[in-house]
């Protein structure tokens, strides 16, 4: 092991690489010389998955089933961005109960995704455990709590979408089938416990002591005047951006970088920006469910969430409260739609929309021909938008850990990366970080 002082004039390489069975393949390459980061690359080497080509020539309803396959964690997000884009173009008016049901579906996805990341992926880093198995051996009740919450999200999604992963009920105009009230009874009971567990989660993660990395960041999220934005709202930022959900491409653009098979998105000025719970909490905390707002207030961490990416776990936990509490409210008010599936007629044109996936803004754009078939598609997942921000933060943060022993530096950098809950392909995996001295 070398101390930083021993490495003057030589390059140090930080590398992260991973292959897994079903999800994304990403790597980190960090080159340091004389204490300065000279290269910080979030490499994505997974072969392109061609979803934007797979949907060409397909009907809108076929697109909904295809894009759900992009991710096993956030299939609802892909379906929601697509379905709203088509309905906007076709002028479809949906039943208010359908609107509520779609919001409930999104809550289910946020619940399962956030619970998974907080309990199984992220928390062990803060508590000095290698992984959730180690944590479970010491804090069994804690992991059981997280799994119970996650299961509630999965069950809720099963009731609405027909199955917990890759749901099949979403259709342009509504749902192929809407659940009856008794079908929601069991999961409604579970949600009482899930809300309590989510509140305990906020208290738990608020006590985590971890590294700090305060820096200014451009934050971007949907904002809706009447609710915490999921399916609808305007694209806003903390520097005054205000655009319709369909106009993402007026302010942002994708670009190819040599070290990634995924496109990176940047602002029109070339600047990086951050999506996800951190941005949503900062830009729309006044629209949180009262229970979530109280939990955030009690944590006293709202300012830290805005400036310190290591506090994103608190933002995620606050959103867990929001999603469980709102899901409970929606079920209590729910009455099955009179018309679960509105009639619609396709028309040619540009169908575009953005919704809030668990990891942030997800933009879809489709060019539709006169037969209602997709001629061209653009899908911009949150992780591809966060990539450049991750690289910028690695560049900014790495100098602070270079003097630490190898393992500690490794741990800190991994912790930083996990804070974004990255999902390359859309799924990302960051694994064994190795530090090599040239």
């Amino acid at each position, binding site marked *: 092991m070398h101390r930083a002082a021993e490495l003057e004039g030589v390059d140090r390489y930080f590398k992260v690489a*991973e292959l*897994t*069975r*079903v*999800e994304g393949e990403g790597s980190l390459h960090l080159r340091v010389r004389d204490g300065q980061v000279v290269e910080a690359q979030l490499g994505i080497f997974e072969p392109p998955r061609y979803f934007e080509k797979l949907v060409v020539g397909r009907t809108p309803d076929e697109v909904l089933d295809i894009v759900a396959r992009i991710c*096993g*964690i956030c299939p609802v997000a892909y379906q929601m961005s697509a379905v709203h884009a088509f309905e906007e173009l076709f002028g479809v008016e949906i039943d208010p109960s359908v609107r509520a049901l779609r919001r409930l579906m999104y809550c289910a996805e946020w619940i399962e995704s956030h619970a*998974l990341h907080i309990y*199984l*992926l992220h928390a062990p880093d803060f508590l000095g455990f*290698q*992984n*959730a*198995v*180690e944590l*479970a*051996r010491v804090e*069994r009740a804690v*992991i*059981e709590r997280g*799994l119970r919450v*996650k*299961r509630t999200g*999965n069950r809720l999604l099963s009731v609405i979408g027909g199955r917990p*992963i890759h749901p099949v009920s979403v259709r342009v105009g509504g749902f192929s089938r809407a659940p009856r009230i008794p079908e929601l009874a069991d999961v409604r009971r579970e949600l009482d416990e899930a809300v309590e567990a989510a509140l305990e989660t906020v208290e738990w993660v608020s006590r985590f002591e971890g590294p700090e990395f305060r820096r200014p960041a451009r934050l971007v999220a949907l904002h809706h005047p009447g609710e915490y934005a999921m399916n609808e709202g305007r694209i806003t930022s903390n520097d005054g951006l205000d655009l319709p959900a369909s106009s993402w491409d007026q302010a942002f653009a994708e670009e190819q970088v040599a070290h990634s098979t995924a496109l990176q998105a940047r602002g029109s000025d070339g600047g990086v920006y951050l999506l996800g719970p951190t941005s949503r909490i900062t830009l729309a905390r006044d629209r949180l469910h009262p229970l979530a707002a109280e939990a955030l207030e009690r944590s006293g961490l709202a300012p830290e969430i805005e400036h310190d990416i290591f506090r994103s776990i608190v933002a995620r936990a606050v959103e867990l409260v929001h999603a469980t509490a709102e899901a409970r409210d929606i079920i209590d008010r729910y009455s099955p739609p009179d018309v679960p599936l509105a009639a619609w007629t396709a028309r040619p044109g540009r169908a575009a929309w953005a919704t809030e996936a668990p990891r942030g803004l997800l933009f879809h754009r489709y060019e539709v021909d006169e037969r209602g078939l997709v001629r061209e598609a653009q899908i911009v997942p949150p992780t591809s938008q966060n990539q450049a921000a991750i690289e910028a933060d690695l560049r900014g943060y790495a100098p602070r850990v270079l003097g630490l022993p190898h393992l500690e530096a490794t741990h800190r950098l*991994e912790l930083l990366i*996990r804070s974004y809950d990255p*999902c390359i392909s859309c*799924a990302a*995996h*960051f*694994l*064994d970080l190795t530090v090599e001295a040239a």
Partner: protein
Amino acid sequence: MRGSSPFPVTVFACGQMARGDDAAGLLAGRALRRSCRDAAVMYVGQLQVTDLLDLPKGRPCLIVDAVRGITPGTILARPLRLMAAQNPGGMARSSHALAVTDAVALANALGQPVEGWFVAIEGDDFETPYRLSPAVRQGMPRLVATCRALVAALVRRESARRRVDRCA
């Protein structure tokens, strides 16, 4: 019609029909459901730790899947207890889905010791939808026979254990 088994073994059939040889576990599950009254088959796709936690206390299980291997068509069978023990660190890597060994290790850590076997066939082609490779197609009867034999062994063991409990 099959009668109900006094000591059923839960069979978790894993995989995806649309991913070539990855369908082998699901197809084996289908065959067991038809032909093995002691097998309570659950089609889980990707095994979740909550699937294991939902097992009735003490009920043995079989996890049937396809794996990438060196010799397509080869059948692998590993005791779950051994797999978990060989993976004491577990989940060294960040992932949104737990590997089988991680799920078993996590269930064990949560006080649900999982007894049973992991059975798999080494696959060749995980790309061609809805079609098994020749090697896996040829190996399917052996996969099903191995599963059936292990289910029978688990039932015999459970039966013997209960006799001992009654005598104690």
